């Protein structure tokens, strides 16, 4: 217990620590640390091998991370609830297998096969969510069972041969289509323009309502940075094969789900359930419905990621969705700053986290390192990130306890 004086002193102390160092220690850099990490990784690998930052390799990197990043979008929502989904890898493999078998062995149209694959993901999410929400079984256990069971189902679906090769079709086009300069530059202009326009519009609305409009330099810096990334990125992609359709799909999904997370009632409720489920329940939020929706969403996005992975591999086999798919999909957002403890994080960490892990993996492949070393380093990065999250969390709770 403390009086107002102590409280004021604490507030003063907090303001004094508001500098960059203080904010790093408090873990509220707004995701900046992941960009620092990414820059470091890129510089190190570029120094070790000057092909790392070439247009060909960066295009490959983007194609490599697409599937994992899409799976991670769903994982971010699950993590925001303070839950975990260990089945996303198996679900991605199973749903890709269902799609491949329907399209290749049963002659279904590719679009219909993709749709059924996605729906299979949705059903799995609802099924697993039922056990968590209606029966109160922890997601860790439910999805651990799913991890094993769906892998078995995948083997069953694939049958004796164990591999289904995908002939050229809409499915393979997903990752082998590249767009030229027209689409590329239009995209860069549209994205940059949209960032600036929405920012200015919001400032106008806030000013009209008599609210603090927020710092203009912040908006300018944000626009310039995003614009730079878009234009330089498009320039690099165009100097190789062009702008991949897969990357456009990924960016569209990220934008849609980031909007849902931050700007809609549903997204707000996801954060609330992850922050304090009891408070959310008392506020009249139907928390089980929120949870069920998130599980269905996560499994559907896992299916989408699996389909993208199959498209890139031009095949589905018994090891699709196994190996490090699951651990990378969860580690990515966590490395990039989404908390494992729920309530804190951003959909964009699905991309930045996948880029960190993808860059490490890609760079070590270029250097010809063995899988053993790759796994150990990736594990080390994950441990460091989670430790950082835990320390930041403790700092925050120390500030709030009075």
């Amino acid at each position: 217990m403390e009086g107002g004086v102590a409280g004021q002193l604490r507030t003063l102390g907090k303001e004094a620590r508001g500098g960059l160092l203080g904010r790093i220690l408090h873990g509220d850099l707004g995701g900046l640390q992941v960009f620092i990490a990414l820059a470091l990784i890129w510089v190190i690998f570029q120094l070790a091998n000057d092909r790392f930052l070439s247009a060909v390799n960066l295009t490959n990197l983007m194609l490599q991370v697409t599937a994992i990043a899409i799976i991670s979008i769903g994982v971010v929502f699950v993590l925001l609830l303070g839950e975990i989904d260990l089945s996303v890898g198996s679900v991605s493999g199973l749903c890709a297998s269902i799609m491949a078998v329907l399209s290749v062995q049963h002659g279904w149209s590719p679009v219909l096969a993709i749709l059924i694959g996605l729906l299979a993901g949705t059903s799995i999410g609802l099924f697993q969510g039922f056990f968590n929400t209606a029966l109160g079984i922890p997601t860790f256990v439910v999805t651990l069972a799913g991890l094993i069971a769906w892998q078995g189902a995948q083997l069953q679906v694939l049958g004796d041969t164990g591999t289904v090769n995908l002939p050229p079709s809409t499915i393979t086009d997903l990752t082998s289509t590249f767009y030229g300069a027209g689409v590329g530059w239009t995209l860069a202009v549209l994205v940059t323009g949209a960032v600036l326009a929405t920012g200015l519009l919001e400032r106008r609305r806030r000013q009209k309502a008599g609210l603090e409009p927020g710092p203009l330099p912040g908006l300018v810096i944000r626009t310039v940075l995003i614009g730079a990334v878009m234009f330089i990125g498009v320039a690099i992609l165009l100097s190789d094969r062009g702008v991949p359709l897969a990357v456009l799909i990924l960016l569209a999904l990220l934008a849609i789900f980031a909007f849902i997370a931050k700007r809609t009632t549903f997204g707000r409720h996801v954060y609330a359930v992850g922050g304090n489920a009891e408070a959310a329940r008392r506020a009249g939020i139907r928390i089980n419905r929120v949870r069920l929706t998130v599980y269905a969403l996560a499994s559907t996005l896992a299916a989408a990621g699996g389909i993208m992975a199959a498209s890139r591999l031009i095949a589905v086999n018994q090891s699709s969705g196994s190996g490090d798919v699951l651990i990378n999909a969860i580690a990515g957002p966590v490395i990039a700053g989404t908390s494992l403890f729920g309530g804190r994080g951003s959909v964009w960490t699905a991309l930045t986290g996948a880029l960190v892990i993808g860059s490490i993996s890609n760079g070590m492949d270029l250097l010809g390192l063995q899988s053993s070393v790759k796994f150990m380093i990736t594990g080390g990065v994950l441990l460091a990130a989670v430790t950082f999250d835990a320390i930041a969390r403790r700092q925050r709770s120390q500030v709030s306890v009075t």
Partner: protein
Amino acid sequence: MNPQVARGEAESSGDGNGRGSTEHLLALRGFSKSFGPVRALHNVDFEVDAGEIVALVGDNGAGKSTLIKAIDGVQPPDNGEAYFEGKKVRISTPQAAENLGIATVFQDLALCDNLDVVANLFLGKEMVDGVPVHVLDEVDMEQRSNQLLKDLSVTTLGSVRTEVGSLSGGQRQSVAIARTLIGQPKVVLFDEPTAALGVSQTAQVLGLVKRLAEEGLGVVMISHNLEDVFQVANRIIVLRLGERVATFDREKTTPEQVVGSITGADTAEMRRIEDETQQKLRGERDE
């Protein structure tokens, strides 16, 4: 002067054995609640008027929390009638209480630390624009938050975009109180609003409680702290072992008398006063 003949009691007996209760904002008659063999509430009457602060005091196990839970629908009573604005009502769920305009500020606050003040104020009642997708209307919510906190003279928060987790206990309590007002309630129930708060923070919260009553809301406050009770309450209702044993007019009583009533005082005077009250209450019920 007999401190036990307080305003509420006088009115109750005046309007024909107290069962019409038209002039009370909220009135309960004959509330009882048992948990197995344990009588948590026994034939308790209760009433609060608009603009009035009623303090509900009593020792541990006296039935204060059970009564609050019966009022806000968390735990409906076994027997008893409730009247809201003169009309007989059934408060069987928290939702029913909220729809009537009864809001509760919980002891453990029930805030989301990871969300900012605006998000917490509007949690579960978000303002949206856009029909197919519920897009949050942040500008309107922030504007209303500022207005609400200004009306309540909560000035210590700084920005309403501050994360609630970084606020002090008093600030958090202020947010929790302001939050109940989003639904525009008519009765606000407080369960130990000043527990675990420091001196200045307590003053801040009690100021808020008073302001709600000044706005015309009926306020019910459970508290163990008689000092706080005497600062804000108009009437003090004492529960002991599940029964309402005394009602005091704050201006005509002393903390000692209230303490005596809470503990079942040892002095002959206290016993006499108590017997009288009991008789009176019993008499009222028998009518």
